[in-house]
């Protein structure tokens, strides 16, 4: 597959899209872990929800 004289523009475009999509996925995954961790810490300190559900119930 030859990309011709403008290969750098094509490769840069695809690389940039891949990087930003990866960044979005990592951001969502880290944020999920962080929120679950905060919930767990709060529950361990004795604060619980009225429903009684805990961070362990969240998959």
């Amino acid at each position: 597959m030859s990309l011709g004289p403008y290969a750098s523009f094509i490769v840069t475009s695809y690389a940039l899209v891949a990087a930003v999509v990866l960044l979005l996925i990592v951001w969502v995954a880290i944020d999920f872990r962080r929120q679950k961790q905060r919930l767990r810490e709060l529950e361990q300190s004795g604060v619980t929800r009225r429903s009684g559900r805990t961070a362990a119930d969240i998959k």
Partner: protein
Amino acid sequence: MPDQLPVTPATTIRMPKDSNMTLIELANPTRFLSLTARILPWLAAATAILLAIGLYQSAMAPDDYQQGATVKIMFIHVPNAWLSMFVWGVMSIAALGTLVWRHPLADVAAKAAAPIGAAFTFLALVTGSLWGRPMWGTYWEWDARLTSVLILFLMYLGLMALWRAVEDPSRAARAAAILTLVGAINLPIIKFSVDWWNTLHQPASVFRMGGPTLDRAFLMPLLVMAVAFSLLFITLHIAAMRNEILRRRVRSLQMMQASQRSA
């Protein structure tokens, strides 16, 4: 906290008779969380498979007789450009959900969609610029299409800043909903800018009266990539909504903890 909001009559409408799930059940964040746990792996797998097929088709697509191989940028530029507008459309519906129906998950959906929409708009602008340099001879031109998309990007950033500036999520939600609906005026301007004004950007070649003007060899990879990116958005959006619900639970528990300490 959204799962403690009062039930409004508007949210008790029953779903079609073949489903025993009511809208109020879907509006319940706890039920939403259990639903996301079940569907997210499937959505992620479908997105990965379609992206792989789309990328393969894009790589195998022939060169354009005028543009050569740079036509391959279209397969990522166009889906991002479509999604940049689609996400604002989703946020506009969510804004109506916040202001009119007071749906408990509406502002969660709007807030979660904004950074994803901003990312797609950024990618549409940059890939368009990288496509424009070899084809038009310039990275940027202040024409109607490019400028209106840049305004959309700035509106996404403004909306994200607004969410961060107001501490109370319900107050922020109302302000953000109004701004979102005002910003929706920009969507038809972006869509029809190439028809209303003389621009460097080409007119619509897929969604137009008389059908697509693209050859099937380019249209198929483009449509597959568009569906793949749409699935990517749905997956990320649902995951970000789940995170936002958890964030509000954390905030609620922190407030309970603070009030217990002060009592």
